[in-house]
Each structure stands twice: as structure tokens, then as C-alpha cells.
């Protein structure tokens, strides 16, 4: 089993990669489901996308930091189920709203692109 490659590999992104916006939307969505620590977010994204999206700490942590600064998520240190300390991220009201508008935009765009691909 080879190490997983990163779907959201920052600057060196391949043209087929989706960039920051999509990643942030995925994180928002993941945290909407339940608050989680960093590793859990990455894992959950991989799970819910059925392994299509993979995200490494190099993309995930900067994205979380950026979103925290933008006020879309907050973080707190909490004990994990196996009694270690981990930084838990959760969605703020602002983040919930952001997820809504981002989702709408995404739907719109997806529709537009589909139209082009079908045309």
C-alpha cells in the first residue's frame, strides 16, 4: 500500500485538482456533521467521498487555520476518546452561513459546467 497522494496539494496542484474553495467547503460540510479534531476531518472527508478526496496535513491544517481566522470555525483543546489532548474544530454560525452560500454557488457552477459539457 503506497502512501496516499493529496488531492488538494496546494500550489503544485495538477490541473485536475480542485483548489482551496472546494476543500474549505468540504471541511465546512464535515464539521457541520459534528465537531472533530484535525485528523478526523481528513479521515471523514476521505470516507464520505468514498476515497475520491484525500487530504494531507499540509493542505488541511493551513485551511483550518485560514477558516478559523475568517471566523467560520472555532477550535478548543479537548480530551479524545483515548484520553489524549486534541484540538477540536467546530462550525460557527458564520461558518454555517458560509456553507449555505458556498453550496448554492457550487450548485450553480456545477449546473453551468454541466451545460457546457453537454452542449
Amino acid at each position, binding site marked *: *500500500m503506497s*502512501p*496516499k497522494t493529496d488531492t488538494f496539494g*496546494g500550489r503544485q496542484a495538477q490541473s485536475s485538482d480542485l483548489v482551496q474553495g472546494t476543500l474549505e467547503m468540504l471541511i465546512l460540510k464535515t464539521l457541520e456533521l459534528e465537531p472533530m*479534531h*484535525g*485528523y*478526523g476531518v481528513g*479521515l471523514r472527508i476521505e470516507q464520505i467521498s468514498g476515497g475520491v478526496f484525500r487530504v*494531507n*496535513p*499540509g*493542505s488541511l*491544517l*493551513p*485551511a483550518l*487555520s*485560514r477558516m478559523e*481566522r*475568517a*471566523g467560520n470555525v472555532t477550535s478548543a483543546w479537548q480530551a*479524545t476518546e*483515548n484520553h*489524549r*489532548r*486534541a*484540538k477540536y474544530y467546530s462550525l460557527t454560525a*458564520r461558518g454555517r452561513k458560509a456553507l449555505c452560500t458556498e453550496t448554492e454557488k457550487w450548485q450553480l457552477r456545477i449546473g453551468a459546467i454541466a451545460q457546457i459539457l453537454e452542449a
Partner: protein
Amino acid sequence: MQWLDNLTNGIRALLQPGRVERDLDEELDSFLTDSIEHKVRSGMPEKAARREALVEMGSRNSVKHQVWSSRWESMLDSLLQDARISMRGLLRSPGYTAVALLSLALGIGGNTAIFTLINQVLLRPLPVRHPEQLMAFANSESAGIAGGIDPGQIGGYFPWDMAKQFEADPGPFQGIAAYGSFSDTASLRLTGHADGSTDGQAFLAPVNLVSGNYFSVLGADALLGRTILPADDAAPGSGAVAVLSYHFWHESLASDRNIIGKTMTINGTPFEVIGVMREGFHGIKQDIAPPDVWTPISMQAQVLQFPSMLIPHSGLYFLHLFGRLTQSAVTNKADFLHSQNWLDNRVRDAIREREGGPLSTERQQEIGRETVPLVPAGRGISMIRSEYGDSLKILMGVVALVLLIACANLSNFLLARAARRRQETMTRLALGSSAMRIVRQSLVEAFLLSMSGGMLGLAVAFAATRALIGFVSQGDSYIAMQSVPDLKVLAFTLITSLLAGLLFGLAPAIGAARTGVHGSIGSNVRTALSGGGRRVNFWPKSLVSAQVAVSLLLLVLAGLFLRTLRNLQNQDYGFERTHLLLAQTSERLAGYAPHQLPALHQQLLQRLSAIPGVRSVALAQMPPISNGTWSSNISLSGYTPGPNENLGSDLNRVSGAYFETAGIPILAGRGFTEADNANNLKVAVVNETLARHFFPHGDALGKMLTIDMDSVRGPWQIVGIAKDTRTGSPRDTDPVTMTYIPLAQIAPYLPVPAGSSARAATSGLDENQNCYANTLLLRTTGDPGQAIGALRSAVASIDPNLPLLQITTIREQVSNLISHDELVTTLSSLFSSLALLLAALGLYGVMSYNVARRNSEIGIRLALGAGTATVVGMILRESLLLLGVGLALGVPLALLSTRLVKDQMFGLNPVDPFTFSLAVLVLAGTTLFAGWLPARRAAKVDPMQALRCD
């Protein structure tokens, strides 16, 4: 408030980098542990799981770096880092950095200094409520007492009775107030005790008379106590109250808060101190030496020690008026016109009423045309503004150009440096540094330079402003201008520095960006550096040509101003301008009554003549040339004036040896002698222009002249004709008629008007005020400055109370009258020399760089047998080309721009061929010298060395 959280979090992160780091480390650790645990759970051996987790995470530092860069404070952090790198780079070439900072400091400092003055003289509004509503009635810059004119005409003078009417009925104005057109210096003494017995210290300070509503219409409040109120200014002689300026209170009274209610004598009369104004308030008139004390106009006779000018129909006009418009008249043109028309109608009515009796249709029409224009006074009424305003604007342009030249130099230097660092830049790009980062580095360096330059510039500006204000004030100890920059000035400096930085940092930054796009480390770096000629060179060379062009403009300007000043100084003034010392005194302030003057004058003349090195001595009311005038209408026997003919003549009352002392040649007849005294026939000397105008056949001598003023009516027999002199502004070349009368022949008492009682003849107030002589003139054999000490002690030996208000040589007196010309000339010469130096430095830098760049090419040429002369010629040709392009741009530029200063010229055309040729020659000489130095270096290139280097 999201941004606020973001900001505070960022600042916290900047202040506690350790905590952020630890936090991140812990998070990464937990991430790693989770990852390993997860892999182990899904059946991977622990060792492999750990390895894979580590691989997934990649470089721990890189992750940390990415988290860090996702936050704004990382931007700041890397900016600081850029600043550190730039600082190191700049310190590595201290010579260049010093030159760069010096030229920036001078450039920005010059701009700031001139702006400081412009801000104070031209921009700053009065510190009062709604200054934009204030309107002066006519241009009220001049000061004095006028008579025989219509109210509001020629300088906006009004009599007291009319001012009172306006005060009572301001029509569409919110209020109309009056103030004395001049601030007379008075002797103040704080008595300390209500009974007046005191040993308090005496001060000389300017006192201004103001109407009871002056402060309320002006919209100014007192800092302590109260301002003058209408009740204080009700009737002549009542209302002995005084309001002090902050400056006087602070400097002379040690900010004594208990001053209110105390008594202070002004020229001997006790006044109650009722208030102190706020700091920075100088009244509506922005004089160089602003008033320190305000008293009601009702106290005019006591304050000015001059017979009452408050009698209705006295014909003495000495007040200026201003009004406060309603806000709607400020914004609405129709409302404004309504106010203007109301004022004009009131003035016309007043004129008609004053004339009395039936008026001719012609006069009716004339009155109907008279108008008193409303002049915006929100920034105060300032003689300095009209005198120096244009000069300051020109200088602002000049210093801005100098700064541009300095910027061009810096731009070139940074370009050259960027080119030298091209390889380094490319390496950095190849190593993954973003082009943005390199551009930013380049801009940071520029801003670092411009900000440091701006800081130094502020210091330069402070010193320069002090010097400039000193120049403008001409020795007045306190003036209403400050060299301390206010917020507006600081903002100006900041913006100027930023703009300058952007200006000279932009080209190198763009250059760096271009390297980022096109550069690749694989390409032949050396070719790019040595051969990649034209493109790389285009910028520096065009900048140098532009510098040459702008320098030419500045040189031409300086040349024109220099020649103007020369012309002003070297014109025929009609009197001698060497060996003459002038002293201003005030016999009235020292307490002399007119009938005591003949004895005093006699004593002064004797004592002063005895000073060694003094050839002759004279007294006069006014010096041969000054800002003031004493004038009146005259009439001449045997001369019938035409309709509307101007019969005005300037007057001066002088003692015996005036003409010899002032050095004014007598062209016909004789000057005055000691025999021209009260016992003999009254005589007068007139100037050429007067004689020629009234007696074109040359028969003026012996004719009788009458002055339209009771105190000096005459008739006077003309016994001599003196050469014309410049009496006022040296720019004013229109001939002026002039009448001189002997001081000794002016009666100390006024003629008793028919019908008045004999009692008046002995009362002090009816003494003849036109007997005073305010000027002492000393013609010396040597340097007149040497006689000042002896003059002081001689005057003190007669009466220690006789003040010597101002002592100047005639040369200084003339130069004071052309001080704004001197200011512009001195500064534009200074700045154009600086510009020339900077442009020469610029050319030198660019050519030196070219020579260094083409070292190997020159080496090859020399090795192939080219002579030194050829090489020197080759390099010089380039300099010549730049010079040529610069001149081709500069001459039309100068021709266009000098038109703007046409009004400032005196005795020459702004398209002065001599000035232009000289400027071109100086510029060519300097440029060629600057180009020759690198050329000579090129010729000394050792071919072997150059080739080996390659």
C-alpha cells in the same frame, strides 16, 4: 467585529511566536498519533504505519510554514524580514546609501518646508466657528488712516460712525464687525495694584482696536475671562478693558491665571484685563507681528494717543469691516449676491448722505457704480499671503521638481543594483521564490529608503522652515508662524515619501518581475548582463535625459529670478544706497508733545552729528523708501486742474540736511537749510515728476504750493527740484509726485478754526500731530553698521525713553522691500544647484555603470588596437546624446513653463536669450564633466585584466 478578532489573534501570534509554535507542534503530534493508530487499527504493522504516516505528513516544517502563511501576520513578518535584508544591503554600500538619503532628505525636506509655509500662509483657516462664512469688506490688507476718499474704496477703510451703523443693522449678514486697520505699538505696564502705584515691568506690544461685537462675529471664545462686548464699545472714552493674546499672557505674564480683573496701563491709561484668548488666535488680520492686546475702538484716543477719530463726519477712515454671511449665502449664489447688493446700496447711500446737497448727474452715476466687494476671509486677511503667495507656489513647483530628479537617481541606482543581482534573483526564482516576493523585496527596499529619507527630511524641513520664517519676519521677535509641523504637514511628508518611494521603486520592481517571467537560470546570464543592451538601458537613459531637461528648466528659472533681482537692485533709486543708516523712533510713544519737538529735534541733530564717522544727519517723517506713505491733494498757484485730474502728491517732512544725507540730488534751485525755520518764508522742494507735470515749461521754481490738509496747508514756495526717487515697492516704476516740506516750518499747534473757543488752543489734543519725525538718517563715511552703537548711546544720552524701534542700513531697507524676490531667487538658485548636482550624479552613475558593464567589450576594443581617444570618445558620445535629448526636451519645457512666472519678472522677458544660453552652457559643462570621469576610467581599462575577468 470579525476583523477585530482576526487582528487581535494575529497580534497575539506575533507577540508570542513560541506559544503558537508549541500549539502547532502539539496538534501535529496528535495528528500523527491519530494517523498511526488508525493505520494500526486497519491492520498495518506499527512500524510501517508510523513510516507511512510520516510520509503522508511530509516535511513538518513545511506544514508549519503553510499554516503560518495562511495568516495575515505572516505577511507582516516576511515584510519585516524583507526590511532586514534591505537594511543589510543598504548598509553594505554606505556611500551610496548616504548620498541617496541625503538627496531624499533634501528633496523631501524642501517640499515639507515649503508646504509648511504654504499650509500656514495659504491654507490654514482661522481658528474660529465656521470661518467660511467670514467676508472682508473689500481687500483690507493695507493699514493706516485715510481721508478724502469714499468709504470702502481704495483699501476698504471705513469711519467709526458708519461701522456703528453696520454693527446695529447688519442686514442680511449674521453680523458685521470692525477693527483698527493697524495695530499700534503701545507701552503696557502691569500695575498689580488697583490704585495704580506699582513698579511693574513695562512691555511694548501691538494693540488692536476692535468693535464690541468683533469677537462674537468672528466666532472666537476666550480661554480665560470674557471677550470684549458691545457694552464696552458704547461711547468714546468708555470701556477701558483689554483682552490679551495667549502668546502675551504666556510669554510676558507667565500664564498667570489670576490676571483677570487686574489693571494694566496702556500708554498711561489704566485698563482692566478681562480675558485671555486661546492659543493660535491672532484676530482676523494675519499680520507678521500679530496683536497682543485688543481694546474697544471707543478707547482710540487713549490707546493711539491721537486726537479722537470717532467724531461723526471726522473724515478719518481707519477701520476695516468684515461680516458673517448666513450659511445659505455661503452655499447659494443668489443669497450671496443679495448680501453683496445690500452692502453696495448701503455704502452708496452713505456716500450720498456724506456729500450732502444736490449732486451732479455725473457724480450720481459715479456713486451708482461704486462697490465694496466681499472678499472671503475664512483664512484671515494676510499681507504675507498676497506678498509671498505666488513665490511660495513657484517654490513648491521647484522643490517638487528637485524631488523628481532625486527620485530618478534612486530609480537608476536600484535598477543598476537589480541588474547586478539578476543572477541571484534568477537563482531565487529557480529555488521556488515567487516573483511576487521578489517584487515586494524590491519595493520594500525603496520604501525603506524613502521613509528614512522622509524622516531626515522632516528634520531638514524643521530647520529650513525656521530659517524661512526668520527671513519672512525680518527680525520681528514673535510672529504668528510656526516651524513645528502640524498633522497636515506630517501627512504631507508621509504621502510625499510614499509617492517618492513608489516612483523610484516601481521601475526596479517591474524589472524584477520581468526577470521573474522571462528569466531562466539556464539562459546565458553573462550575455544578458553585458550585451542585452538596449532594453536594459532604455530606462536609465531616459531618466537621465529627463533629469537634464528638468535641470535646465530649474537653471533657467533660477537665472531669470537672479536677473530680476539684479535688475531690481541695480535700478536707479534716485538716492544713494550706501553709507546711510536709518533708525525708526517714536517721539509720541516717549511722551513728547508737538510743541516740545523743535527742541528735541535740535538736540538730536546736534548730538548725532557729533558721532565720529558721521558726515551728515537728518530727521524725516519717513525714510526715502518704505511701505508707508503720507499723501494729500495739493494745489498750485497758476495751475488750473482738468476735470477728474489726480492732484495727489506723496509728502515728507524733513530736516535741513535731508537731501545731502539721503543722497538725493537737487536738480534745480536749492535744498533745505537751517535757515528754513519758523521765522522765515515757508518753502518746499518738489520732485521732477511733480515739476514736469504741473509746470511743463520748466518754471516751477518760485511758484506757491498748497497742501489740502489743515495742519500743513502752507502756502509753500517751491525753492528746489529734487531728483525722482523710488518711494515704495522697487517694482513700482510709475513716477510718483512728491513734495518735501521742512519740519522746522510746521506749526506745533493747529490753526484755531473760526468760531471755536480760545481754550482749544492750549489743550494737548489740538496740537499738530504732523510735527513728529519718526526717522533718523545718518550718512556715514564708513560702514553704516559701525555707527549703530554710537547712535544708540547718543539717543539714550538725550532721552533713555526715546525708543529705537528698528535700525537698518538703507541697503537692508531696500532689500526688505524686495524680500520675496530675494527669497525666490535665493531658494531657486539653491535648489537648481542641487538639481544640477543630482543630475550630474545621475549621469555619472549611469555612465559609470555602463563602463563597468562594457568592461570586457572595451577591453577587446583596446586589445584590437583602438586608441584611448576612441574609447573616451565612444563613452562621451553617449553622454552627449543624453545631453542632447535632455536639452531638446528641456528647452521647449522651459519656454513653456517660464511663461507662468512672467509676472514675477522685472526688466526682462521670460524668454531671455542670455539666461537660456547660460543655463544650457552650465548644464552642458557639468554634464560633460560628469560623463568624462567614467570615460577616462574606460580608457584606463587594462585589456588583459578585462578579458581575464570575463
